[in-house]
């Protein structure tokens, strides 16, 4: 459906993407994940046609669209700021693309009403100015405006980042439902790993303009391809030499990382550590330990963490087959 071939985007003083190769399948909810400045928005904007690649090609449905103007690529986009037209009402915003295409007024109205209903906008809200709506409702307008033209691809550039936490989770669910209902190929950009893991069929992790890993959320989390991915997606501790020497079965030259949920706490029968921090997270508690002079994170059920206090000595063990080993980075 979508293919990036050795896509490179360079500016006067920096390179945003160093030859990105990537494929997105039809109907897929695909996420570009990475920290700020990793090139994910540049990749999305190159797909939308807002950024001209320095080299490489972009294909949609087997057709090379690298030089095709944005409006003829069959993509709809929801911007981070929503980019609603402040001088127009909600209905006018949604109908804008239709009126540019000179679609008959009656059909415009009908399509606007249908898409508004799909995204959960009430009829009376359509007559309001966009500035009168709450953030969540503005986001629905932006999605409706993108969908009303029935694009083949929907691009979402951090669309939830302007919302409060609760609304973010709620709209995340709605976005997923809508995508399934419409069956539209969706490319989603975010730096929020939790959002990416919850929403996506597949995730591409980008780092410093390069592709670090592509895979399902489970693959990316459980089998990270590199230390960078392991560090960025989810929590993990890189074990120091001293820590490896006190923990059993961790020989070798590779870099070893461990996720908090794979660190076990026992009263005895393990390496000696001290509790330094406790962060209650509802069902689990994140325990900050000091092991062999360096920090180590452990996630334990809150029920078993209830008895712990700062400064308590504990014994630590971990499953040697659940740790992540990467190259001889040291």
């Amino acid at each position, binding site marked *: 459906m979508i293919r990036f071939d050795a896509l490179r985007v360079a500016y006067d003083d920096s390179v945003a993407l160093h030859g990105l190769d990537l494929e997105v399948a039809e109907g897929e909810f695909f996420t570009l994940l990475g920290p700020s400045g990793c090139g994910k928005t540049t990749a999305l904007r190159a797909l939308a046609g807002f950024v001209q690649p320095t080299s490489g090609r972009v294909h949609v449905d087997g057709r090379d669209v690298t030089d095709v103007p944005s409006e003829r690529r069959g*993509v709809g986009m929801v911007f981070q*700021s929503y980019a609603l*037209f402040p001088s127009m009402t909600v209905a006018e915003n949604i109908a804008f693309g239709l009126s540019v*295409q000179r679609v008959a007024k009656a059909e415009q109205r009908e399509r606007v009403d249908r898409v508004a209903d799909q995204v959960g906008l009430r009829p009376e809200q359509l007559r309001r100015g966009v500035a009168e709506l709450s953030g969540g*409702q503005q986001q629905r307008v932006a999605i409706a405006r993108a969908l009303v033209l029935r694009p083949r691809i929907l691009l979402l550039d951090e669309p939830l980042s302007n919302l409060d936490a609760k609304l973010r989770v709620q709209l995340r669910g709605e976005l997923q439902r809508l995508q399934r209902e419409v069956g539209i190929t969706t490319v989603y950009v975010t730096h929020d790993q939790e959002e990416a893991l919850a929403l996506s069929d597949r995730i591409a992790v980008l780092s410093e303009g390069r592709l670090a890993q592509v895979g399902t959320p489970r693959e990316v989390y459980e089998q990270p391809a590199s230390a960078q991915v392991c560090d960025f997606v989810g929590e993990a501790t890189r074990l120091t030499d001293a820590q490896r020497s006190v923990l059993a079965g961790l020989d070798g030259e590779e870099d070893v990382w461990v996720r908090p949920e794979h660190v076990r706490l026992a009263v005895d029968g393990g390496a000696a550590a001290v509790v330094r921090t406790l962060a209650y997270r509802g069902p689990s508690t994140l325990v900050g330990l000091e092991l062999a002079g360096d920090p180590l994170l452990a996630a334990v059920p809150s029920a078993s963490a209830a008895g712990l206090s700062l400064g308590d000595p504990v014994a630590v063990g971990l499953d040697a087959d659940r740790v992540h080993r990467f190259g001889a980075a040291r």
Partner: protein
Amino acid sequence: MSADTLTPVRPGGPRRGRRGRGSTRRVLSSPLGVVVLVATLWFAAAFLVLPNVTLLQATFAPDGRLSLSAFERLLSSERALRSLGHSVLLAATLAVTVNVVGVFIVLVTGWFRVRARRVLWLGYATTFVYGGIVLAAGYSFIYGRYGFVTNALARWYPDLDRDWFSGFVAVVLVMTFATTTNHMLFLSAALAGIDAQSVEAARLMGASPTTVLRRVVLPSLRPMIFAVTVLTFLTGLGALTAPLVLGGRDFQTVAPMILTFARSESSRDVAALLAILLGLATIVLLALMNRVERGGTYFAVAKVATPIAPQPFRTRWGSVLVQVLAWALWVVYVVPVLCAVVFSFVDPRAVMAGSIGLGDLTVEHWVTVLTDAGALAPFVVSVVYSGLASVVVVLAMVLVARLLSRWRSWMASALEYVLHLPWILPTILIALGLVMTFDRPRLLAAQQVLTGTVVLLGVAYVVVKIPFTLRLLKAAFAAVPDEVEDAARILGAGQLTTVRRVVVPVIAPTMAAVAALNFTSLLDDYDAAVFLYHPLFEPLGIAIKQSTEGESAVQSMGTTFVYTVLLMVVQGLVLWAVYRRRPTGTARG
């Protein structure tokens, strides 16, 4: 030079993201882009660059060869040298007096907890609608040789020197109370921008209100005080109307001297040299101001600044002292305005006699101005000139600002700097340049002589309003997020549709506001008109100035007061309309 052309900001404005700007080739690929570019280059060459080149040429190479004769003649003219000294003296004095009054009224209206702050504010804000030639004429009619107060005093003291209110002291007094507009605009805004929590923090650490004012508030305002001081200094240096009307024979400054010298063909080179010196001083001071402005962070660093609350007085005598001074100043500000309104309904003979009774009240002047075509003419001429010039400059600068905001090249920067030239040049220098350039056929003006025609004053008005208009419109374009334009594009809208249906509706309020502000500031212009007006189409500024010349002209005093009131009403309404509207931003929840 008006306050708006000298707002303490740098050319350039906010930068767009790199993806929003294109190469020269891209700009030239659009037919509209080419037309706008060619028209802008022609206008800039003909009316911004050529006049200044002509002025330099007339000064330093009158016969085609380099000559310093203008300098020699300037140095040998005692009158000219004295005017230079007077200008510096006036500027330096105003820098002190205007700051003392300006800072005080800003603190009274924005810092201290005083009663009826809004009433006080309204009184101090009269300078927004009452300034320039109108104000100078008003003071002249009240305190001048034939003024009401002078006549009233003369009844009791027949030996009174009728010119008691003229010369240095009169000019300084009038200008001090007339030029606090910049303080009211910029210093008030800077004071409002101070984070109240920083004040509270200082109070918690034991600082007294005076210490907070001295150690926290005033240092934060320092760059703005410096900026308005420079503006005040420049206002003093280039002052034309106040010294002209109230300076008398003994206190003439550079600007009136330029006017005098420019009137005679033989001394025009000295006029040009004086204008260039004035321009140079302006450029140097503005450059200095920009340097200082870049010097450091003085404003609130908090993400969300808490607005400042009025500070109570600690001692009773402090409260009494400040309030007495505040209201005394209020009277000084309000009396001339009240007099203008009252005198517009009074028989001039009563004003001349220095005593007004109920029987002297009349609506004759109002009837004359509103029904006699001849009396209304100057007002109509000014309205037409100002209206046309403001609309033309706004429409043209919309296109130019759009071009500049999407064009990344050294040529774009160069063009932008040329368009900002009028910002750093005094109006009288611009006017003189235009007069001296277009008094002969010029290729850039289709071989037409423009001096003496009705066109040139219109051109001058457009020229002086370019920097202010361009700056605000560029900022308005920059405030339209790139994403909004991208959204329109991805929905299928072409360039023109995007501009027409998405961008212009967003910037329309700014366009309207800029046009309105341009209109009111040109309405009572004197500085450009005095060099460029057509004798058959006398603008308001000229008519008002003439009514201050000699005893016989005093008969037209009533008409002038009607003009004054009309001007204040129009300017007041425009300002109210501009500042009343709620800010329109991008849609955010």
